[in-house]
């Protein structure tokens, strides 16, 4: 890369900074290797070839040509992703015209430490830090003008808030202004996130349509015109304007759709089956992620996992046909031998050797105690290098191996395997990180970096002397699954698991299956829900591998991944269920309003009750002259600081249905922000066009409701609310008042969480292992979640996630055993004084007392221990010790770090 003479705009960094023709795509790319693209002089003009000459590994081959390969597959998954909206299609955004108007994608690369200016936020015109930054929301979204998308992209509100928070982190003095329409913080924990951004000093959220004015010739600042109810129209100057662009369908989607023969919806995303959003119109071709529609990361991840499960269903008969068993030589017992350490110092191409003097370092290693072999390698991770390590370990009788290279996060498993190949316990392997911790951060101080590399290796050698062989153990996996909850999510998940040949025990507290979906009669998109649920329930009852327990309560849940034992009291009596995995799909409950005369006046209904009355053809509802709906009842407040996500669309759904049944009805929806994200925006627009009135209110001045009489003398409910646009109090007469009551965590949530040792989020819903990356798993191994138990969501999202959970369950159940790490805690009973400090610290419940002839002693269940080692620091007698991170091992590292050098030199070598 250093030698390549071609520089051209870096596509990954939005063409803000430059890159070379030979380059790494971006710093987290997988695989993390360099490649040459079309800007190469040789490829264009048959000139140059400098890189070919300087590459020591002869890795560059200009003779390569594109080739076509035929691959036979049983299924195809279309994960085509999304494309950011390009604001150049609308000249009024001034993108490309004014230098200091950027897209949110550009801004993202400015924020990133691997971005265009290495984490500095600089604007294009003068490369200075912008002080006043404005974000404009809904660029390219929620608009029916030519070139824009009519739908809501769903992610921009929150990513803008993230950008505001990060900008304030970078420059606390920056003034950030967000011009927005509705704030759509409908995702899990998003409401709190919005509040965090909004409450930062120097941050303004202004609800206003805006237009970009002009560029000031001298400063290149950009003006924005906006209007507020208090001040009227204003024009304000900003140093930088960020366009929060929406999400477009994937690039070349029409061509790809034709190639695969899949149908698109009018927005050019994949046309989805409402009851199975993971399949296309062509059997065998599946869809996940952004091609389903504009989605955030968690939805994208669980749909990917769900598509995986469905492909598993399709191809289950071929499972395991292409796998090969690895065989290792028997392990040599070296625990009684003196340490014989081998050190392999990796050049990592020039990544390390360009900074660290590797030959000197190798010579230094040979002077360290117990080191009997040291050598360099160009790439230790290359297959032949790994083989070399194995061979030399055998030849020279090494019993500990250190590779001085990169972070253990990526390659430790590979090198541990290398040791196993040589018949040595993998825990005798130690990794010295002289790349991330050294050569990459000290590239300008080569001598100090070489000394530091030697220090790091010396520390590793000291630690290696104390390493012990540890046994990983195979836990058998019981092939059955337990699904807790017989609603839509539980049913879907159970069927998908059973379809892949696994027994499923489905536990439902009610007498019937179907859950809350039984009370829903139609969806916004027009799905006949009762027919669908009935079909699903039928399939579950008829499936030979699914055992249904109704009227059930779980009395006890014990065990761990692969072998759980759960006791269930149900209509079948008391059952003891043995299972390898558990899925929590207990759904959610509905808030019972205490406000707006609910429960006192029979004309006040919740949405679910309204739906039942509409479906039942209740004249009082369908024949009403006037109907008012109030949004956010029982949530987005102090008690429940979250958005229930589905209610805005529910209201729109009912409004449209009622307008269809009775076009004369006056319908008014009182809202705070309308959150009809994604394609649901179209229905919001349709409702407006059908003259459904939307009136916004502030939480500080909520609507007031009292019984009264209309002008025509009929008895009505009087709903009073301030109208901010007209600037006066409005009084509405309602024959029916429908409340969008919050979705709240199921009453059983806490009990179930306790039984299965899983945790809850601040709002009381179940907490997933990682909000973005592991949205269907718990941190507790072998336990999964899906549906509204996780967070309120639409049926389509529930179905996606339920298949997603099934996919993760299958990943576990398709194996015969799971490997438990050897790095777990162990108690020295002679030292244990049974104080219980470790037991209190271990929230995994991995430590318990048991009786011995010497009295009560703590004992670790190695299967439940996750190896974090917190208990070690709680034990007053040092009786409990985390293997592989023992006091001895860690203290030896500390001593070795400081043994040769006195502090001042250590300081010099530091950053």
């Amino acid at each position, binding site marked *: 890369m250093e030698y390549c003479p071609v520089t051209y705009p870096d596509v990954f960094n939005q063409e803000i900074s430059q890159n070379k023709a030979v380059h790494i795509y971006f710093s987290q790319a997988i695989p993390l290797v360099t490649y040459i693209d079309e800007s190469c002089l040789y490829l264009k003009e048959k000139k140059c070839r400098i890189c070919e000459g300087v590459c020591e590994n002869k890795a560059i081959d200009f003779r390569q040509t594109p080739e076509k390969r035929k691959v036979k597959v049983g299924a195809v998954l279309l994960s085509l992703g999304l494309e950011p909206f390009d604001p150049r299609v609308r000249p009024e955004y001034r993108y490309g015209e004014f230098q200091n108007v950027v897209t949110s994608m550009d801004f993202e690369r400015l924020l990133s430490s691997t971005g265009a200016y290495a984490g500095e936020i600089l604007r294009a015109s003068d490369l200075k830090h912008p002080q006043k930054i404005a974000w404009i929301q809904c660029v390219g979204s929620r608009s029916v003008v030519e070139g824009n998308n009519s739908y809501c992209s769903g992610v921009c509100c929150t990513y803008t808030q993230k950008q505001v928070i990060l900008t304030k982190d970078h420059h606390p003095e920056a003034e950030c202004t967000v011009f927005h329409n509705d704030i759509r913080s409908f995702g899990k924990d998003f409401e709190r996130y919005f509040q965090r951004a909004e409450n930062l000093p120097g941050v303004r959220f202004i609800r206003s349509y805006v237009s970009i004015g002009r560029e000031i010739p001298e400063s290149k600042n950009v003006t924005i015109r906006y209007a507020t109810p208090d001040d009227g129209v204003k024009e304000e100057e900003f140093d930088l304007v960020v366009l929060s662009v929406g999400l477009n369908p994937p690039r070349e989607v029409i061509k790809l759709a034709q190639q695969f023969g899949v149908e698109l919806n009018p927005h050019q995303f994949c046309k989805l089956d409402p009851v199975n959003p993971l399949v296309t119109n062509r059997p065998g071709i599946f869809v996940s992620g952004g091609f389903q529609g504009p989605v955030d990361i968690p939805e994208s991840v669980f749909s990917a996992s769900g598509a995986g499960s469905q492909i598993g269903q399709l191809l289950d008969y071929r499972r395991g046909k292409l796998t090969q068993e690895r065989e290792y030589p028997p392990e040599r017992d070296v625990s009684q031998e003196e340490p014989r350490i081998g050190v392999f110092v990796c050049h990592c191409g020039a990544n390390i050797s360009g900074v660290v003097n590797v030959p000197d370092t190798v010579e230094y290693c040979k002077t360290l105690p117990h080191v009997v072999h040291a050598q360099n390698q160009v790439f230790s991770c290359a297959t032949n290098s790994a083989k070399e390590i194995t061979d030399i370990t055998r030849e020279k009788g090494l019993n500990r191996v250190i590779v001085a290279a990169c972070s253990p996060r990526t390659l430790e498993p590979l090198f541990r395997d290398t040791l196993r190949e040589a018949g040595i316990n993998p825990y005798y392997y130690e990794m010295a990180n002289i790349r991330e911790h050294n050569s990459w951060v000290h590239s300008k101080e080569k001598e100090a970096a070489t000394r530091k590399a030697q220090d790091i290796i010396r520390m590793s050698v000291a630690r290696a002397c104390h390493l012990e062989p540890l046994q990983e153990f195979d836990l058998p996996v019981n092939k059955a699954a337990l699904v807790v909850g017989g609603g839509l999510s539980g049913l879907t998940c159970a069927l998908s698991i059973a379809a892949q040949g696994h027994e499923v025990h489905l536990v439902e507290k009610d007498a019937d299956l179907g859950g809350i979906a039984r009370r829903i009669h139609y969806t916004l998109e027009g799905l006949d829900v009762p027919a669908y649920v009935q079909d699903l329930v039928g399939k579950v009852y008829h499936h030979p591998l699914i055992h249904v327990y109704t009227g059930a309560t779980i009395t006890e849940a014990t065990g761990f991944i692969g072998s759980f034992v759960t006791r269930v009291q149900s209509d079948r009596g008391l059952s003891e269920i043995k299972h390898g995995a558990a899925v929590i799909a207990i759904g959610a409950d509905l808030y019972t309003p205490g406000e707006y005369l609910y429960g006192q006046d029979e004309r006040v209904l919740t949405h679910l009750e309204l739906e039942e009355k509409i479906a039942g053809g209740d004249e009082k509802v369908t024949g009403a002259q006037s109907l008012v709906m109030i949004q956010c009842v029982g949530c987005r407040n102090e008690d429940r600081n979250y958005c229930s996500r589905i209610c805005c669309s529910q209201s729109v759904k009912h409004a449209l249905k009622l307008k269809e049944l009775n076009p004369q009805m006056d319908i008014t929806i009182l809202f705070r922000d309308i959150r009809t994200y994604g394609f649901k925006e179209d229905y919001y627009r349709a409702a407006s066009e059908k003259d459904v009135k939307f009136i916004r209110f502030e939480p500080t001045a909520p609507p007031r409701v009292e019984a009264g009489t209309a002008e025509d003398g009929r008895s009505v409910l009087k709903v009073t609310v301030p109208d901010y646009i007209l600037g006066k109090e409005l009084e509405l007469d309602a024959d029916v008042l429908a409340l969008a009551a919050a979705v709240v965590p199921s009453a059983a949530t806490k009990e179930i969480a306790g039984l299965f040792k899983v945790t809850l989020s601040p709002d009381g819903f179940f907490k997933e292992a990682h909000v973005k990356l592991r949205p269907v798993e718990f941190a507790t191994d072998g336990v999964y979640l899906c549906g509204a138990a996780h967070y309120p969501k639409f049926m389509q999202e529930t179905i996606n996630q339920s298949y997603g959970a099934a996919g993760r369950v299958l990943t576990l159940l398709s194996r015969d055993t799971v490997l438990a790490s050897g790095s777990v805690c162990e108690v020295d009973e002679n030292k244990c004084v049974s104080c219980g400090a470790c037991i209190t610290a271990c929230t995994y419940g991995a430590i318990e007392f048991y009786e011995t002839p010497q009295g009560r002693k703590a004992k670790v269940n190695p299967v439940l221990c996750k190896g974090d080692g917190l208990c070690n*620091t709680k034990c007053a007698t040092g009786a409990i010790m985390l293997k592989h991170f023992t006091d001895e091992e860690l203290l030896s590292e500390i001593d070795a770090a400081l043994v040769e050098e006195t502090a001042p030199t250590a300081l010099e070598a530091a950053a």
Partner: protein
Amino acid sequence: MRLIRVMCSGRIDPAFVLRAFSQGADGVFIGACHLGECNYITHGNYHTLNMVLLLRLILEHLGLDPERLRMSFMSGAEANLFVENVNDFVKKIKLLGPVGAGEGIGPQELKRKLETATELVPYIRLVERERLRAPMMSEEAYYAYFAGQEMKRLFQETIVEKLAIGQIIALLRAGPLTTAEIARSVGLTPSEVSKHLSTSSRHRLVRYDQEQKRYALA
């Protein structure tokens, strides 16, 4: 800066920190996950912050600058935060100078002080669990709590006397000393030293040598 890997900051023992200082490290930096974003479910980083703040009180009490021990919170994706924190820390430590020397404490004295504190670690664990553990709260609240009067009183009650007696015993290992000599070495008033000596005599840790007119180990 030399890095040592642990799987969770909760594994970091006060003894490790003290060992690093006694081996001549001028600063100890602990990088941990953001509070409330535990990779495990144990929230070990809260425990570590509690331990760090307690250790900082001990360092300060021993005459060392508590800024030599710092804990920062960051995620794996926040390289910029790590760089900022580390650079700032290194700058701070360079200002403070070498450990001990920067505070005007001689190497022998430093060693004795840190050894005394290390010997106290098992006791610290016990008393931390019983009395000095703060409930989980924000980083700022932790710092405020540990700077507050309540903690000052608790620290005085639980740790200070132990540290003083520990140091006196460490001093007496080298040979008998008078109250005044002890007072000079550990930086206490003679009357405070007398109080500790009488407690220690009661516990039969030290005795008064009539012949030498000095205190000695029992």
